[in-house]
C-alpha cells in the first residue's frame, strides 16, 4: 500500500514539475517576445517625433523591463532545477581488487575492478601467469578522486 501511494505521489510530483517547466518555458518565450517588441518600438520611435516618439520610447522601456525581469527569472528557475537534478546523482566510485601470487619468490600483482564474490584472502582458481602458483585477493579498496580542501591552520 505504502509503495503504491509513494509511486502515485512521485508520479504526481513529476507531473507538477513538468507543468512548472512548461510554464517557465512559456514565460521565457514571452520575455523574448517582450524584448523583441521593445526593440521594435524603440526603432519605430527613432523615426517619429514629438508625443508619438515619447510614447514609443515609453512602451519600449516598459517592454524591455518586463522582458528582462521575466528572462532573468525563468533562466534562474531553469538553472536551479538543473542544479538540483545534478545534485541528486550519487557518484559510485570504482572499487578495485588487488590480486597477488602466494609463492614466496613471485612478485606478481594484478589490479582489476571488483567482482561480486571477491573478498580479502580469497584464494582464486586461476593460477599465476608467471609461476603457476596460487593467487589470492590481498586488498579491496576504492580510490577517491576528489581533493579535500586544505586549510592552513
Amino acid at each position, binding site marked *: 500500500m*505504502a*509503495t503504491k501511494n*509513494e509511486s502515485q505521489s*512521485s508520479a504526481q510530483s513529476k507531473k507538477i514539475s513538468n507543468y512548472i517547466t512548461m510554464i517557465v518555458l512559456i514565460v521565457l518565450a514571452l520575455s523574448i517576445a517582450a524584448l523583441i517588441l521593445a526593440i521594435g518600438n524603440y526603432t519605430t520611435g527613432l523615426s517619429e517625433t514629438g508625443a508619438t516618439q515619447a510614447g514609443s520610447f515609453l512602451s519600449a522601456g516598459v517592454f524591455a523591463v518586463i522582458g528582462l525581469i521575466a528572462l532573468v527569472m525563468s533562466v534562474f528557475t531553469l538553472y536551479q532545477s538543473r542544479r*538540483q537534478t545534478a*545534485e*541528486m546523482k*550519487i557518484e*559510485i*566510485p570504482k*572499487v578495485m581488487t588487488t590480486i597477488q601470487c602466494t609463492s614466496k619468490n613471485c612478485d606478481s600483482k594484478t589490479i582489476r575492478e*571488483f567482482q*561480486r*564474490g*571477491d*573478498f*580479502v*584472502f*580469497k584464494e582464486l582458481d586461476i593460477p599465476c601467469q608467471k609461476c603457476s602458483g596460487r593467487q589470492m585477493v590481498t*586488498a*579491496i*579498496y*576504492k*580510490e*577517491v578522486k576528489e581533493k579535500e580542501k586544505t*586549510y592552513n*591552520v
Partner: protein
Amino acid sequence: MYVMIREVENSLHKLKYIKEEGRKTAIEAIKEIGKPAADPSARVDRYLEYFTIGPQSMDPAGIVNKLDHILDVRDQRLKDEVKLMAPACDEVQINNLENTLEAAMALNFIYKVVRHYYIQGKKTLSLYVIMQLQMILPMVMKEAEAYSSALKAFAYGQPIGDGVGPLIAAKLMHGYEIRKVPKDCVVATVPFEGRTLLVLKAEGPGGNVGKPGDAVETVIEENQGKIANVIMIDAGLKLEGEKVGEVAEGIGAAIGGPGVDQYKIEEKLTKYKIQINAVIIKEDIGDAVSPMRKEINDAVDPAIERVKSVILERTKQGDTVIVVGVGNSIGVGQ
C-alpha cells in the same frame, strides 16, 4: 525564513531520492541473490519500519544485560526475516543482505525524522524549529550520503572503512589455525617474539560485527585470566583537519556500538587486572560505512607495526596477549 525553508526542502527532496534508491537497491539485491518466489517489496517495506525499544532505565541496575538480550532478539528477528525474504542465500549472503537492509532502514529513518521537523516547523511557523533543522542538515546529509554508498558495498560484499580492525586482525592470523568463539567471532593462536598472541575478529567475509565482548570474555576465561595485555584495534572517528588513515595509540576499550561489548570487556579486565591498549585508524563517518578507501587500506601495515611495537614494549617473553580487530568483517576473510 523562506531561504531556510527552501534549503530544508531541497535537502528533503534529496533525502527522499536517496531513501528510494536505497529501497530499490535492497529489493534488487534480494531478488538477485535470494531468488524469492514472490515479490519481496512488501516485506522490505515492513522491514524498513521495524523499531527497537530500549530497556527501561529508571532502575539502571542490570540494564546492560537487558539491552544485550534485546539486541540479540532484534538481531535474530532481522536475520529470520531476511531468510524468509531470500531463501536461496547462504550465511554470508544473509549477513550481507541484513546489512544492506539496515542501511536502507537508516536512510528511511533519517528521511522521516527530517520530514517530521520540516512539517512541524511549517505547521507551527516556528523559525526556531526550521533553524535548528537547517543548522544540522550538512551533518545529516553527509551521514545519509555515507549510508547510500554503504548500500552498494553491503549488497556486493565489499570491505568498508569500519572493517579495518578485522582486516588487521586477519592479516595477523592468516595462515594459522582458526577456531570459532561465541558469538560469530574467530580466534587464532599466533606466536610472536616469544609471546603468544590470541588474535580475534568477527567471522568474515559476510557482513558481521560479531560480539567481541563475549569473545574476549571467553578467551580470558579459557586462559584463567592469565593475559598480560589486551590490544584493541578499531576505526576511530577523525576530527576535521586530521588525515584519513592516520594511526593513533591510546588506552581503553576501543569499541563502538551500544556499549554492551565495551562493558563486558571492561568487567573482565577489571576482574583480572589486565592492561588494555588501543590502536585506532582515523576516518570520518562517511568513510566508515562506505567501501574502504585506499588510504585506509594503506594504513593497515603501519597499524600492524604499531601493534607489534606495543606488544614488544608492554609485554615480556612468555606472555599471552589478546589482539582484537573490532568492526564489520564484510569482504574480509581470515
